[in-house]
């Protein structure tokens, strides 16, 4: 069963149907083979975008995930209407993904190590952060501090959600402040950046990890490339705003292949987690 069915387009790199084309190397791939390889292209290692449910399935020990804060649901505080009303947009996304908003949080084990996990869902309104995402992530951070558990946040987001305007903006301050508290309690925060991590999500919790790791070639940045181009009218350098580019410029600790994520996270926890979470 896949959460991805019908979600997104090929352009976003989300699989559809029995066969799929890799947006990187252009090869036609048998869907099942790709799924068995954790949604990574067996030919070129392109990492497909995956839904939050699928990420949890891949990352957390089977059967160990206990979802939390899932009763927090989006409101429409500004009664926002563009070409479509926000509340209709929300209803559509909820129907499409089966989730109430763009993050899934809870407690789980990775290679037997307990931790608090928040996973953003790029298939729900581009993983954008409004009040619900901010609130659930904050509660996950608070739970990590309270229980002395390591915190993993998997970011995959287009940024702050326009339809909640300044309330979305304030989620950046809220989550960053909560991370300051976790930091003060000595808690471990591993920030995992997946494709894409941009805008207000990058400019808040995503960049505040004790360790910041990223999947290969993920788009990571603050300003959108079109905005940059419109401002400076200069060709952007090769690999601009990709994981490897960020590592080169000193903003992430290391790039990690999806198949190695569990091992690498477990290793960081073994070195830096609190005693109760370390073996």
């Amino acid at each position: 069963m896949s959460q991805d069915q019908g979600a997104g387009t090929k352009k976003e790199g989300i699989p559809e149907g029995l066969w799929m084309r890799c947006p990187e190397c252009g090869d036609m791939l048998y869907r099942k083979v790709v799924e068995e390889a954790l949604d990574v292209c067996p030919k070129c290692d392109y990492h497909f975008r995956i839904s939050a449910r699928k990420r949890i399935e891949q990352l957390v020990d089977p059967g160990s995930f206990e979802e939390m804060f899932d009763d927090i649901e989006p409101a429409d505080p500004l009664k926002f209407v563009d070409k479509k009303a926000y509340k209709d947009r929300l209803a559509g996304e909820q129907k499409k993904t089966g989730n109430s908003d763009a993050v899934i949080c809870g407690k789980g084990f990775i290679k037997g190590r307990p931790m608090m996990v928040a996973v953003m869902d790029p298939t729900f309104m581009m993983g954008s952060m409004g009040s619900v995402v901010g609130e659930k992530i904050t509660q996950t951070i608070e739970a990590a501090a309270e229980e002395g558990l390591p915190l993993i946040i998997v970011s995959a987001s287009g940024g702050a959600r326009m339809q909640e305007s300044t309330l979305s903006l304030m989620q950046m301050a809220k989550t960053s402040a909560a991370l300051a508290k976790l930091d003060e309690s000595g808690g471990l925060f591993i920030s995992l950046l997946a494709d894409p991590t941009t805008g207000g999500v990058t400019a808040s919790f995503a960049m505040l990890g004790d360790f910041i790791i990223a999947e290969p070639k993920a788009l990571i940045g603050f300003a959108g490339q079109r905005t940059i181009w419109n401002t400076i009218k200069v060709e952007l350098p090769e690999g601009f705003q990709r994981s490897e580019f960020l590592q080169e410029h000193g903003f992430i600790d290391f790039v990690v292949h999806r198949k190695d994520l569990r091992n690498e996270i477990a290793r960081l926890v073994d070195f830096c987690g609190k005693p109760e979470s370390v073996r």
Partner: protein
Amino acid sequence: MSQATRSDVAGTTPGAPILKQIPSNNGKASVTRHVLKFEEPLARLENQIQELEALQAARQIDYSKELRQLRTNYTSLLRKIYDNLSAWETVQVARHQLRPQFKDYVEMICREFRELHGDRHYGDDLAIRCGLARLGGHKVMLIGHNKGKDTKEKVQCYFGLAHPEGYRKALRCMKLAEKFGLPVVTLIDTAGAYPGIGAEERGQAESIARNMMEMSRLKTPILTVVTGEGGSGGALGIGVADKVAMMEYAWYSVISPEGCSGILWKGAENAADAAEALKLTSKHLKQLGVIDAVISEPLGGAHRDPHTAAHNLETFVAKSLREFNSFLKRNSMDDLVERRYEKFRQMGETLKPKTNIAKAAG
């Protein structure tokens, strides 16, 4: 008929500005200004007044009665227009060429200002200014965006769009303020953080995130006023404060109306609709609880009377700093920081009441 040419969006339209005299109004000194589109009826009235004044002087005829009537009409029209500004018109006022900027406010309200330069890592970003200031009878660390006035200064300041080194300079100065017991006052006026290659290479996102995290736990009082534009993370990067206020015709939003229109309406033409939908005015944001106070501007906006605007700002800053002092007489610095945390902890609206507040406080 009217000599006034227009710039729909003041500050972004190149070309010679049309400077003209406002008629003397209740003995107040007249100011020069650019004409916004929705202010054209006002400009026409001004012209009539000027023509009549000229006629009176040339022909030695007494038009004082007519002039009085015209001036009364002018004032009531001004009031009518500014009492009913749309969100998009407010954005244009916030961007007005002649709206006072950081450096103007420093000149008008600071008894002393010693500017401090550089982030100690890479460079000095003139889009954000920092300095030791005496303001409203207090010694403070004053930090704010500056957009620049003439072309040369605008280019030097990147039009008030800050780079990472601007945010890092601000944070360095806030840490100094913490160490030496000075309150921090920040004045926000930016369309956003600079979108460029160097800014991304040097960690624009990281610098903004770091500032928010550190401001949330800075052990000194912080006061923020959005004086003009409050564009997204570029604004919030110096905006996590114990008290946040906006000047009456400032705007504050997650994205500019043009940017929002471009994405959600697939074109820039719907900026006015986007401005309305984004609820970005001081009035809306006070209602939403995002800001604590609105600082009123003189009739017709700060650009018509910068000194009154500056006076209102100074009065507000002085009052707020006194409030911080009296809070700290009865409470500890940790209490202040905890209150700041709780303020931002409450932000947002979801369908389920938040449950973790009590735990967070304990």
